[in-house]
């Protein structure tokens, strides 16, 4: 039984509200019914509301034009709709009730009641899982056959989602199993734990052995090179001491010669300064005394450089020669001057003045001339005045001669000093050879001191390291080395030099560090395994534990199927829906198989159909070429089929869903092109499905002048 009622309050645009109710059709109908009626008798509205009551407006399989009409009914701005529908199956064990109570709310509530139990709400998804709503207007039926492919797409999606749900379910089981008690895993972990503990013990043994070797080698190296560097240091110290002593003695000799030379040179310089004063005085006198013919000698005299003697260790040879020459010249000049009578008189008068000046203060009157002594001296001085130049010249000649004699004396004395200075200078020269030797000593000393410094640094290190070995001291050092060398295992290393030993020790330290790290890692794993074992042992085993391998396989298989259904097949069917012949995917063998299976599936959906005057059974429906191949080998073009026949074929295709356990609600509108011959296969299918409880309701609507309700 199909029961329905609705109220539509439609705004007519002038403020007037018109109300529509199902007043031209009965509100109770049989489950399988054929309805005829004129326009506006409410046939299509009935189908829209029935479809809407079962979420038809959300159903993507339904023609978009029909969905738009359902959406328009829900448009609250234009009209207000309320309805209630109820479909009961033939034995009344099942009913689905739908209500839309709110005029302004689009909310539709659908319930399912089974076996007299209470009504349970059905969401769109739940309804889709249990019921198959088919609502169609079979216009242009040959083209609409394509729409069966949309059903395939929907089914692929539906199955794909279910497989994916199963995949997720299996994955959750596997996760739970991995978190549950797994005896095999516990045993595996225990085996691994034992193995790691064994490996750790071995590492610890290796560590102890390495430590022992390292300690011995470090001690051996410390003792051996402390001993060696002590010896070297001692030898070097002695060598340095010898060189320092050698350097000290060379310095003393050098210093003595240097002092004597400097003192002598200073003395000579003083004498030379004094001699230079005499020389300049003599030169002045010679300048005033000598006649012009002596100009050449005087010129030679003036070029004499007394101070140059300090560097040459001898005077200019012209000095001695010119001194002798000038003394002779001066002597001759004096002899000539002394023979002059005027000079003799001047000398006498001068002697007289000198003698009488001693009695100048007496008041004696000289007899004969009757003048005082003072007046007489005055007269003598006046007389002698004109001879004074001669006297002074004679005196100057004497002074010059005396000065030249003194100069010669100084020359002789200084020349002796210069000779000694020269000898000291030569000693100094000898000392310069000693300087080169000193340089070598210094260099050698520096080298030895550097070596000693580097040895001292080494010694500092080894001495500091000896703190670790209180059993070793200076006295027993060599004995300890011999004791250590008795260790046969380490014999090869005792032949190593210092660098090789240091390298070996470094290598052992690295190896020891690595061993320690390995031990720590093992300990980490041991703790980890122990924790895992404890955690696993505390758990209860999962009921599917023995099936974990099978579940993993199932997980892979579900992943594989969902991938195919939701991606590969979905892409293929989309190509067919879009009739994308150019798509390269069609050429692929795998895709060819897919499209062939689709054509077989569509043929199965159509089943047996009536064409012209004969029934045919479809084998394949090729939507791309628009051909149906039949069991008896006939090829029928879809476009050659009559409209009514192809409508019938199409609707049969929609109903032929035996694989689908969902209960069908079939609503077919505007089947005007179908005659009774074309409609009969639909009715038969309705009855067959209804008898097997697969069809809940089947309504076919057609336009006519009068309302007729005919049960099928």
């Amino acid at each position, binding site marked *: 039984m199909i029961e329905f009622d609705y109220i539509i309050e439609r705004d007519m645009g002038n403020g007037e509200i018109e109300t529509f109710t199902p007043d031209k059709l009965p509100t109770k109908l049989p489950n399988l019914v054929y309805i005829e009626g004129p326009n506006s008798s409410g046939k299509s509205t009935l189908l829209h509301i029935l479809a809407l009551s079962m979420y038809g407006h959300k159903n993507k399989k339904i023609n978009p034009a029909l969905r738009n009409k359902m959406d328009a009914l829900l448009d609250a701005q234009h009209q207000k709709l309320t309805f209630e529908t109820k479909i009961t199956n033939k034995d009344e064990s099942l009913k689905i009730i739908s209500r839309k109570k709110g005029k302004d709310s689009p909310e539709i509530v659908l319930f399912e009641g089974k076996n007299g139990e209470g009504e349970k709400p059905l969401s769109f998804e739940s309804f889709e899982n249990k019921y198959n709503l088919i609502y169609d207007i079979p216009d242009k039926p040959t083209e609409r056959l394509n729409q069966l492919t949309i059903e395939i797409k929907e089914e692929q999606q539906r199955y794909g989602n*279910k497989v994916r749900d199963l995949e997720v379910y299996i994955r959750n089981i596997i996760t739970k199993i991995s978190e549950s008690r797994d005896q095999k895993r516990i045993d595996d972990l225990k085996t691994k734990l034992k193995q790691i503990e064994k490996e750790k013990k071995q590492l610890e043994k290796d560590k102890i052995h390495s430590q022992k070797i390292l300690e011995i080698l470090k001690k051996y190296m410390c003792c051996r090179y402390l001993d060696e560097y002590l010896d070297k240091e001692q030898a070097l110290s002695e060598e340095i001491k010898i060189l320092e002593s050698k350097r000290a003695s060379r310095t003393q000799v050098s210093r003595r010669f240097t002092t004597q030379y400097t003192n002598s040179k200073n003395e000579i310089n003083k004498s030379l300064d004094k001699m230079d004063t005499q020389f300049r005085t003599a030169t002045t006198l010679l300048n005033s005394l000598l006649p012009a013919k002596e100009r050449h000698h005087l010129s030679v005299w003036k070029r004499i450089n007394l101070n140059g003697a300090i560097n040459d260790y001898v005077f200019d040879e012209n000095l001695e020669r010119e001194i002798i020459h000038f003394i002779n010249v001066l002597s001759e000049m004096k002899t000539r001057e002394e023979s002059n009578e005027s000079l003799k008189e001047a000398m006498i008068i001068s002697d007289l003045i000198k003698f009488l000046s001693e009695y100048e203060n007496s008041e004696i009157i000289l007899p004969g001339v009757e003048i005082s002594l003072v007046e007489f001296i005055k007269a003598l001085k006046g007389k002698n005045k004109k001879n004074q130049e001669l006297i002074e010249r004679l005196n100057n000649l004497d002074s010059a001669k005396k000065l030249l004699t003194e100069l010669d004396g100084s020359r002789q004395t200084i020349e002796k000093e210069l000779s000694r200075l020269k000898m000291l200078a030569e000693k100094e020269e000898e000392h310069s050879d000693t300087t080169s030797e000193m340089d070598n000593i210094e260099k050698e000393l520096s080298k030895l001191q550097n070596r000693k410094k580097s040895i001292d640094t080494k010694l500092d290190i080894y001495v500091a390291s000896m703190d670790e070995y209180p059993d070793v001291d200076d006295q027993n050092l060599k004995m300890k080395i011999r004791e250590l060398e008795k260790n046969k295992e380490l014999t090869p290393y005792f032949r190593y030099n210092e660098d090789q030993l240091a390298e070996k020790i470094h290598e052992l330290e690295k190896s020891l560090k690595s061993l320690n790290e390995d031990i720590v890692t093992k300990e980490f794993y041991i703790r980890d395994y122990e924790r895992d074992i404890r955690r696993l042992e505390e758990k209860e085993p999962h009921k599917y534990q023995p099936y974990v391998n099978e579940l993993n396989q199932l997980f892979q*298989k579900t992943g594989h199927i969902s991938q195919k259904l939701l991606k590969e097949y979905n892409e293929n069917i989309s190509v067919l829906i879009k009739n994308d012949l150019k798509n390269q995917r069609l050429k692929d063998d795998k895709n060819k198989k897919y499209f062939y299976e689709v054509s077989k599936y569509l043929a199965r959906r159509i089943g047996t159909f009536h064409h012209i005057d004969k029934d045919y059974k479809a084998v394949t429906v090729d939507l791309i070429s628009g051909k149906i191949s039949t069991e008896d080998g006939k090829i029928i073009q879809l476009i050659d089929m009559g409209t009514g026949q192809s409508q019938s074929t199409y609707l049969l295709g929609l109903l*032929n869903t035996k694989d*689908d*356990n969902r209960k069908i609600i079939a609503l077919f509108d505007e089947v005007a092109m179908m005659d009774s011959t074309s409609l009969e296969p639909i009715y038969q299918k309705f009855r067959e499905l209804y008898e097997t409880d697969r069809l809940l309701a089947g309504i076919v609507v057609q336009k006519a002048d009068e309302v007729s309700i005919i049960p099928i």
Partner: protein
Amino acid sequence: MNEESIVSFFDALLDDETEKKIIKLISKGLSEDEMIEILLGIKNEEECL
């Protein structure tokens, strides 16, 4: 299996027997737990239907 079945369509496309069986069980409307028990051989289909 009915010839018209979408299941037979998938059956023709899939090669693996287990995969075919999964599709078949889904078409029966069984719960995930029931499907797993059948697939693991713990229960048979008749017990679940």
